[in-house]
């Protein structure tokens, strides 16, 4: 596969190869290799990830009612999302209906996680791809204050506030302990913000870190404990008793009032800080619209937030479900997790073995048999030390999931695109996106970019913050109408279950479509498969040579400096990648550094 075309991209691996590994500033493991042409434009992209270990290796033979607790431990950030997906899969298999309150409380917890995760992602994990922290030290605090006041009514905006912050930052940078700010390419010409915008963004980064305190309390209230909330097959594990006094036991009015105040403050923070920052930053980068990848042609979402309990049909979901393929934005395909023809995983370029690798397998029939053989004519290195991968052979631990054979992008941008093209069902999404486009004075096609993906996350955060308010009101109305039920335990006893059953659970995790597939036999788990968002987006090539979303997003992006691949980090980070299950113990000698090799 020297030069070939796929999905509208011309893949050419003849130019110099740049390896970025690991592709992260402060976190785990994903490796990207690209080929650059003579103008430092990416003409071939290869992304490879650490192993996704099928959960069946841990869950087989265990109690289905406990699966959520194990899935919560897969990963530190998707915790609640995995748990929710897991209980939904078991409930689907056993046809268990949950009470309205349980559905609403689950929605609130998932919405809360969405808002929280998007905020943390933007400020902590992604902003520094756009914001130059070191440049913030040069900012004029008075002008920073004027800038902040011009974009929002947020009260923390005085020159004194920014001066204190700048001093704190200076001290921190001078101490040499850069912490979250280490391993970045400060001063790179791809940074476009003036020092004042940089300082304002750093201030809000710190405020967002502090704001987390409020947000996590909601999970404690509904989940009983944190940071690993409890979940329950059949409902939620918290009882409701509005008349109870004090902070122990059941959820009472005092606890609900606290939830309400946190929800209101979250919305305020998103409206007054996150969105204005996003717009301010985007206004300096609107000339840099690379990184769209598959988003203009193939996106998919399972949808989430059922308005009424137990109705998982597309029309009842408050976050859109559907698939768009071949760039036909006016045709939304119905997505069904249980249709064996729709979701299939291929391993042609993944280090696994199938009996027939020309075909994909639906997760119900999923097989995870490792077959680690780094090879191919362009492979360089050894089994334990890879210098160059060869994408014509197997090259990743990530499988290649496809929807009806198509590589698709999942995540906030996909969901917002699906919402945008259905204005009747999702007027909020359509109106908010139009307002953002108008404010930035860019055409709708600007959405299909790294910047668009980052903006879509913010827009979705606002949408979810707003939905939280509505779901909370619904919960209160239902309780006041006399329904305090939170769990259905009719089928708790395995003796009531069929001998064999199978089901699928879905959510939209902050970073994209998450599915769990369970097979139950004699009351125990017989098979359990997860397809996580990063498997979709980080997918390697498939049998037809189709590239995955990360790979596509890097295509045709010019690098300002070949030895400082800031643009690659920016684009990959815009997906909020998550490769759980990778474990590394650090030596006391130091920080793991991102290495860039050019060959």
């Amino acid at each position, binding site marked *: 596969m020297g030069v070939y075309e796929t999905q509208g991209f011309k893949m050419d691996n003849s130019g110099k190869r740049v390896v970025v590994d690991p592709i992260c500033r402060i976190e*785990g493991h994903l490796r990207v290799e690209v080929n650059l042409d003579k103008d430092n434009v990416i003409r071939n992209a290869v992304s490879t990830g650490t192993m996704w270990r099928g959960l069946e290796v841990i869950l087989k033979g265990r109690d289905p009612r406990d699966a959520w607790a194990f899935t919560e431990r897969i990963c530190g950030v998707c915790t609640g999302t995995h748990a929710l997906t897991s209980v939904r899969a078991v409930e689907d298999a056993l046809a268990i209906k949950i009470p309205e309150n349980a559905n609403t409380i689950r929605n609130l917890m998932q919405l809360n996680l969405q808002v929280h995760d998007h905020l943390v992602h933007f400020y902590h994990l992604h902003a520094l791809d756009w914001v130059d922290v070191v440049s913030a030290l040069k900012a004029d605090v008075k002008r920073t204050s004027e800038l902040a006041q011009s974009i929002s009514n947020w009260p923390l905006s005085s020159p004194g506030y920014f001066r204190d912050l700048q001093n704190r930052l200076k001290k921190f940078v001078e101490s040499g302990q850069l912490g979250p700010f280490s391993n970045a390419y400060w001063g790179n010409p791809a940074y476009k913000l003036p020092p004042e915008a940089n300082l304002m963004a750093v201030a809000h980064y710190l405020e967002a870190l502090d704001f987390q305190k409020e947000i996590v309390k909601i999970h404690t209230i509904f989940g009983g404990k944190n940071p690993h909330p409890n979940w329950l097959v059949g409902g939620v594990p918290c009882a409701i008793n509005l008349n109870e006094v004090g902070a122990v036991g059941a959820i009472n009015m005092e606890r609900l009032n606290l939830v309400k105040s946190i929800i209101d403050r979250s919305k305020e923070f998103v409206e007054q800080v996150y969105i204005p920052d996003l717009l301010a930053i985007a206004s300096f980068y609107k000339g840099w619209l690379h990184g769209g990848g598959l988003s203009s042609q193939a996106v998919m979402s399972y949808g989430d937030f059922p308005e009424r309990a137990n109705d998982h049909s597309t029309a009842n979901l408050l976050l859109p479900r559907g698939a768009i393929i071949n760039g036909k934005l006016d045709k939304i395909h119905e997505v069904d997790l249980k249709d064996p023809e729709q979701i299939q995983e291929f391993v042609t370029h993944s280090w696994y073995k199938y009996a027939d690798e020309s075909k994909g397998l639906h997760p119900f029939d999923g097989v995870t048999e490792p077959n680690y053989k780094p090879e191919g004519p362009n492979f360089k290195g050894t089994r334990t030390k890879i210098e160059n991968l060869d994408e014509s052979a197997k090259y990743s631990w990530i499988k290649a999931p496809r929807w009806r054979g198509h590589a698709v992008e999942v995540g906030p941008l996909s969901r917002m695109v699906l919402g945008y093209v259905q204005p009747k069902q999702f007027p909020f999404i359509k109106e908010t996106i139009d307002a953002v486009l108008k404010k930035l004075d860019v055409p709708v096609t600007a959405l299909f970019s790294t910047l668009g993906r980052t903006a879509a996350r913010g827009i979705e955060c606002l949408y979810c913050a707003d939905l939280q308010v509505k779901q909370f009101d619904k919960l209160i109305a239902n309780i006041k109408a006399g329904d305090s039920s939170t769990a259905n335990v009719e089928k708790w006893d395995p003796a009531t279950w069929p001998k064999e059953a199978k089901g699928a659970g879905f959510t939209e995790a902050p970073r994209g479509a998450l599915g769990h597939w369970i097979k139950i036999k004699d009351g125990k788990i017989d098979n359990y498969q997860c397809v996580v968002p990063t498997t979709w987006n980080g997918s390697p090539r498939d049998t037809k040579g189709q590239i995955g979303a990360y790979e596509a997003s890097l295509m045709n992006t010019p690098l300002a400096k070949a030895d400082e691949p800031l643009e690659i980090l920016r684009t990959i980070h815009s997906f909020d990648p998550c490769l759980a299950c990778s474990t590394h113990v650090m030596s006391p000698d130091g920080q793991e550094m991102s290495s860039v090799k050019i060959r």
Partner: protein
Amino acid sequence: MDELRCEVLVLGIGNLLWADEGFGVRCVEKLAAEWQVPAGVTVMDGGTQGLYLLPYVQGAKRLIVFDAIDYGLPPGTMKRVEGDEVPRFMGAKKMSLHQTGFQEVIAAADLTGQLPEKLLLIGVQPEELEDYGGSLRDVVKARLDDAVAAAVAALRDWGFAVEARESKVGAGDTALGMSAYEAGRPSAEAASRIGDSRVLGCVG
């Protein structure tokens, strides 16, 4: 409501699905089961929550962390590290691309001016990490008592009355408790538990 504030936060971190990575979590499980701590002391299973633990760290006056740490010592060696030395040893937990190492949590607490006054890390050198679904190895499991005792001693030093419970109480999620977790593990054949080498961990 200030469940986020406490005098001492005793935090166990790591991923219990990855053999000795679970050391920190097992320490707090044991501490909570066998010792009665006074009000003001919070014992928490932090798992791999990374940055999401920041509010708890910011809210604590003193912090004790249990973790598996690569000290470059023989497996099963326990070592205490205090104060400024702690962040240097804590770059370890990077369980996924977006998950922040605990080192970053400490840096973020510092940057926001809310670093606990005292930091104590009680770590053990792991023997095996690359065993998904496995439990603590014997040499590491053998350090649980010492590690918990070290935390109890530190708490008493700081003036907190920690008392042994007369009988153990259950801790954590029962299905994930160490004995249920170990007993329920599927056999290697049933789970196709082979070929665990991972390419990206090996790239130099």
